[in-house]
């Protein structure tokens, strides 16, 4: 009964949503803000990747907030699972030696890939969030592959704090040089080079480290939680 009602209501809502969006033509040029960003991104920010320049430069403050949300989520997760730490149960089998070796071999490559992605965030698709996530995936592989593996939370938190401080300091430097918070203070360089686009690479590297450390911490916390049955 409830299911039928839900289906009916959702169908109703879906119909109206569809009629609403039917008025938005698909595939046509309806940019207003985006056009401005596209035209000014290279001369103004020096970044080739417009999405990156929007995320880090035009909406840098928003990204700072987002990083904070991520940090809060990681902290909150630790708080929620506080006191549930224990040995992972021994029921499951040992990871095979192929998995262990493969994990060890893959980890540096994955980290390298992640680092590449966030260092080249202003040139190619990707950036701090993606690179950080990829690094966290590498840590996930380690956690899965090596049974005794435990992330060093102290190191992670130091990395994360340093990265966060870098972000904020980069913002405050803008203030210190008489501009706005998070405004670019470095030379823009040649668009297309790695060392260009002012503070974008710095911030994206910081974001990459921060996201990587946070997500690795989240994974490790989740992994080392006991299955609350005792």
């Amino acid at each position: 009964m409830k299911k039928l009602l839900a289906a009916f209501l959702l169908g109703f809502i879906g119909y109206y949503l569809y009629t609403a969006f039917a008025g938005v033509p698909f595939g046509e040029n309806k940019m207003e803000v985006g056009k401005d960003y596209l035209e000014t991104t290279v001369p103004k920010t020096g970044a080739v990747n417009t999405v990156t320049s929007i995320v880090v430069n035009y909406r840098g403050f928003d990204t700072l907030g987002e990083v904070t949300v991520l940090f809060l989520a990681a902290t909150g997760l630790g708080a929620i699972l506080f006191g549930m730490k224990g040995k992972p149960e021994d029921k499951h089998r040992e990871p095979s030696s192929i998995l262990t070796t493969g994990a060890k071999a893959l980890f540096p490559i994955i980290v390298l890939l992640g680092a590449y992605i966030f260092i080249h965030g202003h040139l190619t698709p990707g950036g701090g969030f993606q690179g950080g996530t990829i690094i966290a995936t590498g840590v996930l592989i380690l956690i899965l592959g090596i049974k005794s593996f435990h992330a060093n939370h102290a190191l992670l938190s130091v990395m994360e704090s340093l990265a966060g401080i870098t972000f904020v300091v980069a913002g405050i430097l803008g203030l210190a040089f008489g501009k706005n918070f998070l405004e670019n203070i470095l030379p823009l360089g040649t668009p297309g080079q790695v060392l260009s686009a002012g503070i974008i690479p710095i911030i994206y590297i910081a974001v990459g480290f921060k996201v990587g450390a946070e997500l690795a911490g989240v994974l490790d916390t989740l992994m080392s939680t006991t299955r609350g049955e005792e």
Partner: protein
Amino acid sequence: MIYYIASIAVMLIGLYAVLVKKNLIKIVIGLSLMDAGTHLLLVAIGFIKGGTAPIFSEPGLTADAMVDPVPQALVLTAIVIGLAVTAVALALVIRIYAQHKTLDIRKISSLKW
């Protein structure tokens, strides 16, 4: 146009799970499906036929021949936040399971009227 239909469908399927399903993990799955639908919808709105990715990777590219970067930037943010939300929700689920030994929301009644 089929993008709109599909993304709205995914959103509504997720909402259906949130409304009807009694398993907590299913509800979290529903939430992440709603997320996914919204992301697809936003990016699809920003799509421009014949446009390229908004990256000036080659010298010849001009701003006229690109898709809208703004929805992409927004969705990028939204995906990361969605992950944070999912992680916290699942941590709560784990905690609740440790407390109540069940994931059925009908049986978790200590805070209900």
